[in-house]
């Protein structure tokens, strides 16, 4: 338990070395960077790993986009590499239909489980939450380390699955049975099997993380940090923790059952008398494909809020800070977040209107789905009103945070027709759905996460990120994102199905607008890719050459994360912080600088 290693290095202890040499030596490379138990290092580990996966998932998408715009043409630049790595599936640098399916399934899986969730929850949650509640670390530092390592190996397994015979999982990120089981039936150990084992590891990692986060927030709040004094970011992480804790285990159960289906040829999800390629499948039957869908979406829908709540948390912090005003309706936002958490458990079957549940069940899920849009709108409205009358500082992080609001708004509103079963039956599995959830997650959540990176970077490194590069990044991304996703609504309304490897060429006439949009979307995606280059340069170059921060609190923020030394040392706070007031005391009259920190004595 004596891990107070580098707590006070630099403060010049004059103790004889022999007295406590076991305490004060600098940890070696492995201990400091790989097997660290410090929540900040683990947060950075999560951050870098998930950004790499974000990049990789994006590259998979670029290959798919090229194939959609120019079906059957070899992929420029990486085509040769793909053929060298994957052989037959990418013959001549052309993506085969099977490979397209693999890329599609893995793009979804990687973006959701290996990029966004670990970035939003693992990275920001780990780095910021203990700082904001005034804690020295997470409640269980070693569990925290284990959580990252399990996550990492889950990711490695997912990547390795591209190289097993038959290729990576190719039944969509939802892995619906029976397709997921019969796709490679004669080969029990296939990409899908690796996917399932990888998922079990990722779920385990999330569970360990969730236990740790909730315990930390309940137990390690600083003196005076009452529940209604918590920054909204912490509330968002708290609710997210409960979603992960309670929604993920059913998917773990489902994963285990499908794994057994694949390895031992049981029939949990295989119906009686299933015929594949003219042959009756040699299994007992008696299972239920619907069971998989229920178990999957029982996670799948709360997962949407796992993606969006931390993003709302980040955006709230940044908006309050840059409008220099208290958040409007903090308490209603907290209660709205809790309502979202609760309601998200009873809306899952709105993903299944087409699988035949009967109208009564569908009505129930329609009602709950409409209900859950209320708390989301409350949060969004509160954030919009928070902007009212503020003298807003438009730095890069604020630009991203502000543009989150309309982007998430579009994503949310286009979801309403999908929540009604009458309109969903037409739109289901079309590009409309793709456009809808990407608006929520890409220009929504990812913008919020970018905002968070620009915002907390000075705390992590002691230097600002470059504003010029940041603004190029922002405007390029904003234009790119909208040109990519808005046309998908049109494609979807014209009936374009979401999983066709030729982009619908066999379905539409050659001069259909939906087909032509494929090409323009791909060009927009290329623009989006180019817009990320300044960001990548910015992240790495600013570590050494960014402008240095003037003090520990460069944004003049009120929350405790800015009351630490920069970067925060092991143990975070020089002395135990005590909280005297709410989280957003901006525009305070008579206060020096117009704001009062949470730990400032009254």
């Amino acid at each position, binding site marked *: *338990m004596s891990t*107070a290693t580098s*707590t006070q290095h630099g403060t010049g202890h004059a103790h004889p070395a022999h007295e406590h040499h076991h305490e004060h030596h600098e940890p070696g490379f492995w201990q400091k960077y790989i097997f660290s138990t410090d929540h900040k290092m683990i947060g950075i580990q999560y951050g870098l790993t998930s950004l790499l996966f974000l990049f990789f998932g994006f590259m998979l998408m670029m290959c798919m986009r090229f194939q959609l715009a120019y079906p059957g043409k070899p992929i420029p630049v990486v085509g040769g590499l793909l053929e060298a790595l994957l052989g037959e599936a990418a013959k001549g640098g052309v993506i085969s239909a099977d490979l397209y399916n693999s890329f599609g399934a893995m793009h979804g899986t990687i973006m959701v489980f290996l990029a966004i969730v670990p970035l939003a929850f693992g990275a920001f949650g780990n780095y910021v939450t203990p700082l904001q509640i005034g*804690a*020295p*670390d997470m*409640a*269980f*530092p070693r*569990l925290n380390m284990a959580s990252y390592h399990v996550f990492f190996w889950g990711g490695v397994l997912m990547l390795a699955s591209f190289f097993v015979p038959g290729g990576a999982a190719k039944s969509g990120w939802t892995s619906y049975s029976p397709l997921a089981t019969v796709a490679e039936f004669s080969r029990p150990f296939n990409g899908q099997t690796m996917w399932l084992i990888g998922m079990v590891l990722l779920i385990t990692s999330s*569970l360990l993380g*969730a*236990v*740790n986060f*909730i*315990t930390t927030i*309940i*137990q*390690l709040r600083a003196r005076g940090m009452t529940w209604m004094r918590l920054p909204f970011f912490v509330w968002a992480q708290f609710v997210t923790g409960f979603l992960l*804790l*309670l*929604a*993920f*285990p*059913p998917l*773990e*159960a*489902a994963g*285990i*059952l499908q794994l*057994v289906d694949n390895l*031992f*040829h*049981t*029939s*949990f999800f295989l119906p*009686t008398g299933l015929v594949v390629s003219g042959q009756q499948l040699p*299994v*007992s*039957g*008696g*299972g*239920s494909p619907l*069971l998989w869908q229920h*178990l999957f979406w*029982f996670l799948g829908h709360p997962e949407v809020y796992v993606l969006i709540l931390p993003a709302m948390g980040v955006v709230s912090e940044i908006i309050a800070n840059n409008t220099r005003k208290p958040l409007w309706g903090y308490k209603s936002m907290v209660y709205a977040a809790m309502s979202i958490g609760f309601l998200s458990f009873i809306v899952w079957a709105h993903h299944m209107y087409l699988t035949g549940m009967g109208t009564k069940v569908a009505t129930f899920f329609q009602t709950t789905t409409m209900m859950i849009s209320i708390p989301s709108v409350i949060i969004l409205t509160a954030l919009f009103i928070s902007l009212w009358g503020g003298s807003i500082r438009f730095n890069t992080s604020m630009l991203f945070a502000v543009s989150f609001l309309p982007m998430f708004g579009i994503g949310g509103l286009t979801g309403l027709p999908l929540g009604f079963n009458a309109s969903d039956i037409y739109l289901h599995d079309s590009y409309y759905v793709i456009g809808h959830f990407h608006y929520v997650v890409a220009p929504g959540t990812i913008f919020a996460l970018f905002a968070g990176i620009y915002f907390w970077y000075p705390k992590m490194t002691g230097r600002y990120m470059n504003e010029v590069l940041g603004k190029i990044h922002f405007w390029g991304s904003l234009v790119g994102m909208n040109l990519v996703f808005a046309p998908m609504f049109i494609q979807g309304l014209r009936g374009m199905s979401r999983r066709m490897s030729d982009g619908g060429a066999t379905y539409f006439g050659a001069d259909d607008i939906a087909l032509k949009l494929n090409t323009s979307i791909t060009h927009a995606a290329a623009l989006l890719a180019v817009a990320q280059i300044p960001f990548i340069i910015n992240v790495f170059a600013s570590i050494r050459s960014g402008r240095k921060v003037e003090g520990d609190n460069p944004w003049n923020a009120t929350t405790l994360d800015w009351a630490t030394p920069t970067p925060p040392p092991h*143990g*975070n*706070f020089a*002395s*135990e912080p005590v909280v005297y007031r709410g989280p957003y005391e901006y525009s305070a009259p008579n206060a020096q600088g117009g704001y009062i920190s949470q730990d400032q004595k009254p």
Partner: protein
Amino acid sequence: MEIPYTYKPRPDTGLYNAKVGIWLFLASEIMLFGALFSSYILLRVTSPEGEWPLVERAWPHGLLNIPIGTFNTAVLITSSVTVVLAWAALKMNQFGKFRAYMLVTLACAFGFLGIKSYEYNEKFTHYELRLKDGQVHTGHIEVNGKHAGFWDFGSIYNLDRLGKEQVKEIAFTADPAKPKPGEKHAEGAAHEHKKMTVQVSDIQKLDAFILRNHTFFAIYFVVTALHGLHVLGGALVLGYFAFPGASMWRKNPEQFTNRIEVAGLFWHFVDLVWIFLFPVVYLL
């Protein structure tokens, strides 16, 4: 700053960190087993009416050994009692008593697993036989004069394997017929283990009571195996605290006692899962 409340309770919540952590973890475990129980219910209610094995995919009843299952339940409940007594012994500062109770707990844990594997083996060597003329039997088989021990065969026979090994006929010992509800055993006759020789060419289906045979076996084996893994994991943790980890008792008795409490909570949960599992798969 050091992490607070690692073993002292936080005044406003009244709990130390690990206790909050274990309760949260158990909540997630409830969702895990809850999903499996729900799957069990769904598979069972969608199975066709009728009596297995006469109706092929009907839900089987009474296949599991109830006396052994009852005994195993008692074993697990005993271990739940002794784990509390072990914790109480630490509270009363009696380390020797703690270790004795821990030993009983561990013995129960491994006893449970031993009995469970005996039950598993019973199922691996028990066969369902369907003949092309419509006859259906359950019973035990002999291939090439060898009795149907799972470990003797090395694996389980089915029609494919009989074909590959070019077996022409097998000996089959059928189970005695089950008495119909309300009907008394005809003296002697019902208890008869009918022996017969079966031509492989007459067989439509031959498979042991294993996962691939029927969704009942599939869910039974998956849930009990997952529960068994929890028993094993819990036993390893308790074993660690009883022996190598017990050195903490001298350095920080309060934290050590807390660890036993937390491990004990997990152990009770494992016990509780079985208390639901036993009636659901054995009795109902």
